[in-house]
């Protein structure tokens, strides 16, 4: 699993999965965050929290596996439930989320900034989906990890001095994991803690709008 050739989204998922500890209750956003499940470290068994009121989903049934149509994930897709999993209502679910009982939540970003602000739910004039459970998750989880490509599709920085889009939550992001680096949001600011193989500090700085704190020692992401 320590494949030095990992790149892009796979590298991001691989590194993000290294934040999980054995037994953690983890909420993974729809899309890229679920890729973390393919890169769990050995000996780390996590429990998946789904905002719709279930702990212990394990993913879609295989073609001939039996399933219960009433067991779905946060995207509405049918999933299997592992032994020891449990179901509860939405009120209880968000009590767990907001109450700090979820160890880690992993989400994507439209924008994230050096104060730990995150914008990932709306682009005024373009999207009208609504925030769903994202605001609760970012406010409530003990550790908030944003996994995102370092720049947007046009090459513009997504890691900013200050988010311009409407926020999902203010000052709650702990880590940002991209294909280039791992940034840790501390009281002093965003610290460049790890670099992907072959990536230089200069490259990260040039692709980041946020001010970065560059420590003497920077680890490798792999």
């Amino acid at each position, binding site marked *: 699993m320590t494949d030095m050739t990992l790149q892009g989204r796979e590298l991001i998922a691989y590194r993000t999965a290294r934040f999980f500890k054995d037994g953690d209750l983890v909420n993974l956003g729809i899309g890229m965050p679920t890729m973390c499940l393919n890169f769990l470290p050995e000996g780390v068994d996590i429990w998946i929290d789904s905002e719709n009121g279930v702990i212990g989903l394990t993913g879609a049934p295989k073609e001939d596996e039996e399933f219960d149509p009433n067991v779905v994930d946060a995207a509405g897709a049918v999933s299997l439930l592992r032994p020891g999993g449990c179901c509860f209502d*939405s009120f209880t679910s*968000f009590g767990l989320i*907001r109450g700090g009982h979820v160890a880690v939540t992993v989400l994507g970003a439209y924008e994230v900034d050096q104060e730990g602000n995150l914008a990932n739910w709306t682009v005024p004039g373009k999207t009208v989906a609504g925030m769903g459970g994202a*605001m*609760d998750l970012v406010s409530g989880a003990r550790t908030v990890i944003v996994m995102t490509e370092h720049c947007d599709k046009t090459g513009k920085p997504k890691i900013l001095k200050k988010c311009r889009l409407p926020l999902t939550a203010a000052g709650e992001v702990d880590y940002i994991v991209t294909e280039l680096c791992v940034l840790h949001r501390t009281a002093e600011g965003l610290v460049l803690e790890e670099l992907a193989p072959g990536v230089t500090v200069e490259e990260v700085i040039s692709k980041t709008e946020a001010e970065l704190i560059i420590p003497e020692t920077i680890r490798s992401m792999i």
Partner: protein
Amino acid sequence: MDKVVSLEKAMEALHDNQTILIPGFVNIGVPETLIKGIIDKGCKNLNIISNNTSVRGRGIGLLVHENRIRHITCSHIGSNTETVEKVVAGEIDVTFVPQGTLCERVRAGGAGIGGVLTPVGIGTPVEEGKQIIELDGKKYLLEKALRGDVAIIHAWKADRMGNLVYRRTARNFNQIFATAADIVICEAEEIVEVGALDPDMIHTPGCLVDMIVKA
């Protein structure tokens, strides 16, 4: 107290312009039998409180498609592209509420609580027009209770006096929505005799339910 009635009888409680609580997450745990009853009765100009609007052509999506909804209070409409279209076109008004805050507000409405203080939404557009209260150095939004005229809900099993059991993730908003309306109508996949359900395993006490319809 046998609360099992026909769909027609249950629909006597439904009218134009009502505020209706409808549970469901995407299209799981949605009371589709009762929704079809509302459509057949012709109720319109409805004010819906729900988490989302199911998917195109199913569940709450039927009310969207038939243009029966004036306003929706919900956390997300992305799972139903038709809702998105009608909101963009100005045919339906929408108020977005964070999902956990929606739970809190409806629970408060059912439990005689005037409102709750939540940190969720601080520093975001959700703040707008709301009172901010600082406690021990932390900021909270005062989120007010929310209730409906009618709640329509979906259970797995109901006994004849309205004790309910939900199935897996189909429980979602059913359990709290059953507490916060003047009239609560439940459709159940299976109707059992009084005494058939384990008292410790009843998710909603029968005292909250006014009518039961076979789903």
